[in-house]
């Protein structure tokens, strides 16, 4: 295996086009175990961390831009980002240990294609878009469309995610991410739930998004729950509908971390709790972003 560290998107793209067995990586927290386990054997390891725009976190009045290889610790340590998107920040802060978060990235978490990737439900409910570079130019793809199955993405072998765009959160908007694991830290989600709520002036829900991880081959949106929330104050009856809708979209595996029945039930519980936390945060975020 040969190591390459291109310093620009163009250099990386031409490297990937000319070497069919090249593999990009950011923090390497997934690729190293995959190489050791014999699941990957790239000839060229393309380190994306020497490309400036891949490791950056900026905002203007329209959106936040997060470099795809930016270590997740830089998101959790950024107060302005974490206040505006506490759900993405708390999801980023759940990816492995401090050691892992020094290296793990949103781009890697997404493109590794795990159904249990913590940051993906949180990114999805915030309408995050991925800017994908390739030899034919750039394309902007909704994060919800990137992963097509476990370990599978819509990216060609010579494409990679450069950065993520997240529109600035309107006022009266809050998000949240909750995860159930058998221990407190350092495990893979049995269920993950991301929620986002925007309130109308009268305190009812004007817009809602709910996404579940680890309960289907890819992260799934719970549109029935989103529709049920609109115009309500997330009262008990509505939350019962949300929980039932969340359980209903599950198509989980049975494994050592949780049975199908357990995952379905926990999905409903976490969905309700995530919506309530997002509501509370939306109420607190009135006015200036």
């Amino acid at each position, binding site marked *: 295996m040969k190591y390459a560290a291109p310093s620009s998107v163009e250099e990386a793209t031409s490297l990937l086009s000319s070497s069919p067995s090249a593999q990009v990586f950011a923090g390497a927290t997934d690729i*190293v175990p995959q190489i050791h386990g014999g699941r990957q054997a790239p000839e060229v390891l393309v380190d994306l961390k020497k490309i400036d725009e891949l490791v950056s976190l900026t905002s203007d009045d329209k959106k936040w831009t997060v470099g795809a290889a930016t270590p997740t610790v830089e998101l959790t340590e950024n107060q302005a980002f974490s206040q505006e998107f506490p759900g993405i920040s708390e999801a980023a802060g759940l990816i492995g240990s*401090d050691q892992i978060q020094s290296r793990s990235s949103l781009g890697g978490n997404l493109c590794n294609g795990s159904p249990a990737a913590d940051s993906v439900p949180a990114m999805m409910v915030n309408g995050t878009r991925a800017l994908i570079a390739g030899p034919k130019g750039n394309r902007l793809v909704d994060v919800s469309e990137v992963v097509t199955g476990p370990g599978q993405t819509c990216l060609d072998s010579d494409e990679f995610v450069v950065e993520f765009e997240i529109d600035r959160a309107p006022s009266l908007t809050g998000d949240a991410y909750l995860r159930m694991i058998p221990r407190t830290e350092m495990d893979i989600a049995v269920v993950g739930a991301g929620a986002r709520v925007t309130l109308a002036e009268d305190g009812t829900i004007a817009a809602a998004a709910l996404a579940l991880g680890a309960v289907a081959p890819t992260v799934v949106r719970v549109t029935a729950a989103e529709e049920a929330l609109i115009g309500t104050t997330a009262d008990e009856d509505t939350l019962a509908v949300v929980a039932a809708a969340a359980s209903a979209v599950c198509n989980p595996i049975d494994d050592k971390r949780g049975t199908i029945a357990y995952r379905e039930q926990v999905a409903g519980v976490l969905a309700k709790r995530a919506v309530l936390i997002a509501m509370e945060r939306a109420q607190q975020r009135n006015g200036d972003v």
Partner: protein
Amino acid sequence: MARTHITTVINGDEVDFLAEDSTSLLNALRDEVGLTGAKEGCGTGDCGACSILLDERVTCSCLVFAPEANGANILTVEGLADAGELHPLQQCFLEGAALQCGICTPGFLIAAKALLDKNPDPTETEIRYALAGNLCRCTGYDKIVRAVQEAAMQMREQ
């Protein structure tokens, strides 16, 4: 196999070494540089025995390819003691019997240092979360947590 020339600063000293591209930074530190403090426990980033500070961030060196460290500033457990005097964390681990077999200890010391660099007065909960990426099969963790609390107190008083 071609070897790449890697220039680093390790424990305050400029260090150049050669390593194959696919070699982990952990193996390069141990086999090429001769710093055997960082240990390989799992090789997959789960146990933290290989923890180092890479540009001041606590990192599993088993998950870093050696050439990635080119130009980096590295701290290993060998760099904790100052002119032969143990770091307060090392002294408190010794006095509090916060180690038995010792394989995990270099990683715990580095992770604890990373915590105290950011947060000189952590709560017990904060210590336990900060050390969640380090596994110890001997102590049951309580003595480690107490040693970190004691070291933090001594360092605040200095």
